[in-house]
């Protein structure tokens, strides 16, 4: 009997082990980025449109993965000659050893037929030959360049979602900004990579500080009207302006909370103070009560429980934080000239524009900074590159879009949140005050 038990012991133990999977690992030395190879997709049909569609698809996919900031993309010159279009064509040893030395491989095929295009895409862990597949997707849409662009964005977002730890990619997000290219300052929008720039408002006055709502359906901004600066509201559901109360005085810099409330600066009682209203403009509440101008509120995007804003109550503008009910006021910056705070999606960081040395004989420059809200430790993100202002976080918390004068005119730029990988998005006219959508 005992001997029988010994015979079965391994089986009993393995069954117990299978019930609970253990993973062991650790963190000490730095982690390198994933080496990702993106093989060009192959045509799966003999349609004449394939070549143009494939070029769009491959370029967009490559750019999205490159912009994600979490991959080390393997240069295409290292790729083996035989690039796969199907799982059966993957030659593991050609990809997982130098020169490509990739740990992940994205590949697939695209085929147009009768006005429709079908894309099959896979993501393989090429260092794990036994169970390589991480992702397999199929998309079908009209065979147009725009549709293929969207498919490439979606597939890139899927890869980023899996390998980036559950944070959705930003390939389908939008950026709203102010542009003067038509002569007056109007609100414009574009894809996150600068493509598809289109005008939103046609008011013919001056419109500033666009802020998109968390669900992406409404855009709040401030604009000059007959009664002065007022908060305006544009609906993307209706594609037109919708009514919003006029408060009188100067109403500037709206900001959405995650629950859909709007905070803004209003001088209806004499001095510019921070107010909060519902999305419809009702239930107005005043949060600050002092003489110094309080402007540019921004909500803690994760909790909605705190607001950071700029106040000039002690002279030069400084950044303050408070609870969403106006209590627990704390000054965050200790010197210089600090404006344009923006709260990160994980609620942990503030980014803002700061002239740390300000005054005669101290030639400071407007640079962007990142501050850990809890510890108040900060990092400088831009260096020696003109005036930089209006930083805004991307929804994945990995990118920051901002306005910079480094090219000679004010344009929209993006960078990774550590200050690297700076890219210019707009080139035409004067473009300012970018705002990244919430998803």
């Amino acid at each position: 009997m005992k001997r029988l038990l010994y015979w079965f012991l391994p089986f009993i133990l393995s069954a117990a082990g299978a019930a609970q999977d253990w993973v062991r690992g650790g963190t000490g030395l730095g982690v390198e980025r994933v080496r990702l190879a993106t093989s060009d997709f192959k045509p799966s049909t003999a349609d004449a449109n394939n070549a143009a569609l494939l070029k769009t698809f491959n370029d967009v996919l490559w750019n999205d993965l490159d912009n994600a900031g979490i991959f080390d993309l393997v240069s295409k010159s290292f790729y083996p000659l035989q690039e796969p279009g199907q799982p059966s064509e993957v030659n593991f040893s050609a990809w997982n050893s130098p020169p490509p030395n990739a740990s992940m491989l994205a590949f697939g095929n695209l085929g147009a037929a009768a006005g429709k295009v079908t894309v099959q895409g896979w993501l393989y862990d090429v260092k794990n030959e036994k169970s390589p597949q991480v992702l397999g997707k199929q998309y079908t849409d009209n065979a147009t360049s725009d549709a293929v662009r969207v498919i490439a964005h979606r597939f890139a977002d899927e890869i980023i979602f899996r390998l980036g730890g559950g944070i959705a990619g930003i390939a389908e997000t939008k950026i709203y900004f102010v542009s003067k290219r038509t002569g007056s300052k109007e609100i414009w929008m574009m894809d996150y990579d600068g493509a598809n720039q289109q005008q939103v408002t046609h008011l013919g006055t001056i419109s500033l500080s666009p802020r998109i709502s968390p669900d992406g359906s409404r855009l709040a901004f401030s604009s000059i009207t007959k009664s002065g600066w007022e908060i305006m509201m544009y609906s993307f559901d209706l594609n037109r302006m919708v009514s919003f109360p006029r408060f009188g005085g100067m109403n500037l810099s709206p900001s959405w909370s995650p629950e859909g409330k709007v905070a803004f600066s209003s001088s209806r009682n004499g001095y510019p103070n921070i107010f909060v209203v519902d999305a419809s403009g009702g239930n107005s509440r005043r949060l600050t009560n002092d003489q110094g101008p309080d402007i540019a509120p921004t909500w803690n995007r994760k909790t909605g429980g705190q607001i950071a804003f700029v106040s000039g109550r002690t002279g030069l503008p400084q950044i303050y934080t408070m609870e969403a009910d106006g209590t627990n006021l704390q000054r965050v910056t200790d010197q210089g000239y600090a404006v344009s705070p923006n709260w990160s999606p994980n609620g942990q960081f503030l980014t803002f524009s700061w002239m740390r040395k300000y005054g005669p004989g101290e030639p400071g420059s407007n640079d962007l900074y990142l501050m850990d809200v809890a510890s108040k430790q900060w990092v400088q993100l831009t260096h020696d590159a003109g005036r930089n202002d209006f930083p805004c976080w991307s929804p994945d918390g990995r990118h920051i879009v901002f306005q910079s004068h480094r090219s000679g005119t004010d344009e929209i730029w993006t960078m990774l949140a550590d200050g690297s990988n700076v890219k210019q998005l707009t080139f035409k006219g004067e473009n300012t005050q970018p705002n990244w959508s919430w998803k």
Partner: protein
Amino acid sequence: MAAITDIYSEHGQLRRPLAWSLGLHVGFTAFVVLYAVFINGVRGTGWGSGGGGDAMGATLVSSVPLPANPTETQNVLATESKGLSKSQPTVQEKEPEAIPIPDKNAKTRMKPAPVKSATQRKPQPEPEESNQIPYGEGGPVSKLYSMSAGGATGAFEFPGSGGDFGTRYAWYVRVIQQKVQDNWMKYEVDPRITEARRVYLVFDVMRDGHPANVQVEQSSGVPSLDQSAVRALQRIDTFGPLPSDYSGNKISVEWWFDYSKK
């Protein structure tokens, strides 16, 4: 009454056996002495001088079970590492040196005693053998490190340690590694600490990817380091959903953190 016999009155004859016994003893002693003097003396080799030529039963080193984690802990209570607590050397107290009474006529001033400032380093735990890069050392920890660092397969393999999640979904383990690294704020650790022992956490990753049941399995001895590791996990909302073709509803993770400013 005649049946009663007096056993004490029966005297056996002991002379013969005694003589035999004496003879044998003397003979044996003589044999031993003679053997030692002549036979061994002739050979001239003692014990352990080698050259015996006989084989000894030897155990191969590789089959000797190595200790799991050769980290010394100062915790004298029972821990998972077996019996590696280190006895503290007794501190020998020096007699305070007599301070000379200042002479009135003496011109030299007394030196003020060195002030102990608050920033002075507190007595640190004894520096121990570094466990930062236990490359090539025995034990599962170093094996793990070398596997993850070498990146030959990118997979973590633990024969008999419960499931093959690490092998099948090596990419997910890598995601955990990346995410923990990104969220571990080392400035939360006491700045006076330059090096510390490994801190081990255990936690679960649920089906939807969020970490749960975060616990310190083995402390580093530095509270702020333990705390920073726990906070790193608390900051993480999700590691991303577990792979869709994985059947379990959670995985258990043991994760270590190495801290060094050197």
